[in-house]
């Protein structure tokens, strides 16, 4: 388990401090999240310096906002150092083509929450993986819960995309925002999470002491 740098909003833009904060949580895994295209430029500049990134598993969350088109996203992602082997993308930023196919297995596609028009279901994601056959799956369990609190959809995602699973995003949702995992959700999510113990779990919001 590790943290997304998105947990540390007060440090936003200060990449050395964000990496240090994520490392305080875990040296096993971390996700460097830069959801605005402009913010991502700052991350690229930081990574160009070749900083020590002392994590066993490290992913970068691609920008989802401020993008002109999928070609713009590709241009940004191709500037990531090759050593970044996992890049989380949202399916609704990818367009209908295979613009990003050259990024191959470095890409992992995240399931979306109910606010998005596309990318929530296993069928939606199957169309994405048909265009990006090498890509993996990032399972955001709170997103799946937001669409189907019975967790049937979450179960279907794990059933159908088991072999592609590379990362779990872990949090609860309140008013569409990621918040720390509640006790109720911890219990509800546990059976499915037990099927994901071999991939990194990334906390998308601070967890309370309890």
């Amino acid at each position, binding site marked *: 388990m590790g943290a997304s740098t998105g947990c540390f909003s007060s440090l936003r833009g200060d990449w050395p401090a964000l990496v240090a904060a994520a490392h305080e949580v875990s040296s096993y895994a971390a996700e460097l999240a830069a959801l605005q295209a402009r913010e991502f430029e700052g991350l690229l500049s930081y990574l160009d310096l070749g900083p020590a990134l002392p994590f066993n598993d490290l992913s970068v969350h691609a920008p989802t906002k401020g993008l002109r088109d999928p070609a713009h996203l590709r241009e940004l992602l191709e500037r990531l150092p090759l050593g970044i082997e996992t890049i989380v993308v949202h399916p609704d930023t990818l367009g209908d083509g295979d613009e990003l196919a050259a990024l191959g297995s470095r890409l992992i596609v995240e399931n979306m929450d109910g606010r998005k028009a596309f990318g929530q279901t296993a069928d939606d994601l199957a169309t994405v993986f048909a265009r990006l056959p090498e890509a993996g799956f990032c399972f955001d369990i709170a997103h799946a819960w937001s669409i189907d609190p019975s967790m049937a959809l979450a179960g279907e995602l*794990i059933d159908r995309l088991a072999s592609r699973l590379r990362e779990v995003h872990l949090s609860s949702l309140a008013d569409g925002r990621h918040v720390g995992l509640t006790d109720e959700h911890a219990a509800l999510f546990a059976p499915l999470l037990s099927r994901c*113990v*071999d991939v990194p779990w990334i906390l998308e919001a601070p967890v309370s002491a309890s």
Partner: protein
Amino acid sequence: MDSRSSRLSELTSGGGLAALAARSGEPLPHLMAARRRSLEARDAAAARLAELECQEDVSVVVMGSWGRLELTSGSDHDFVVLVGGSPRIAVSPTPAQVGEVLDKPPSRSGAFDGVAYVDHLVTRIGRRADDNDNLTRRMLLVLESMAIAGGAAHEAARRAVIETYIDTRVKDYRPPRFLLNDLQRYWRTICVDFEGKQRDRRSKDKWALRAAKLRTSRKLLFASGLLPVLECHDLTAEEMRTWLGETFAAPPVDRIADAFLRHEAYDAGVRTLVAYDRFLGHLDDEAFRDELRSLSRGDEDRSAAWVEARRLGRQIEEGLLALLFDRDALARLVRQYGLF
């Protein structure tokens, strides 16, 4: 049938790779293709070797990727002529005759392309006489070997080695420590030798290819030995003989897949074997191999092939760790026997 007997029956059901592929719907195309290629190569080699005299206690045994049924286009043809007794002058066929029959040379390792004597494998265990080649041959005979001539002699040799480990001191319902220690010694020897080779300037050129195999094939091979040995915890000493004899006759990935299935770790099992399947697919690609072969240490992160191999290696390791540490029955055994 009491519960212990039914446990043996459950353990020996076998066929893990095909069962996991069927359960998951993942075709594992590269593993399956490599298996077909290995068996076709075995049949072709066996037909050619049939023209040579093969003494009754002699077998020609392939190891390495061929022995694992994971032959790819870049594989060496590693073999030994295995003699079921002590050293003697006249052995037939000779390694030179076998080398002429096989259309690819073995890897440049002292363990292959020679004669091995079962007496050495079973009497020289530990101490100075058990050199690196002897240890390697003994372990690979147990873990990843297949006969292309003299099948009965090969099977007798494999059973003799297993029997050496399951001697009278083995207790019922306790994993055989002798075998466990030798297995762990072999794995650690591979790891230490990898570093040793990096310090040898002449061997530096293929470090990335070696490292990639260490993180994937060799790690899986070790786990494919470790798991059956730990699971001896459920068996009497007599049942261990049956179990180890049968399970070590199966290819290593079948043993791995069987363990994931038995312990109901299907998801991690599928991801582990899909990752390995993908690695084998890459190994079958000359451009991928060449990129790893020519990679200098320090340039790792400039190589897409290395980054992919590293990622797949990590995925395999995480899958194995999930099996060993997140399933209660195995976690208890690893805790009890894994370190000390």
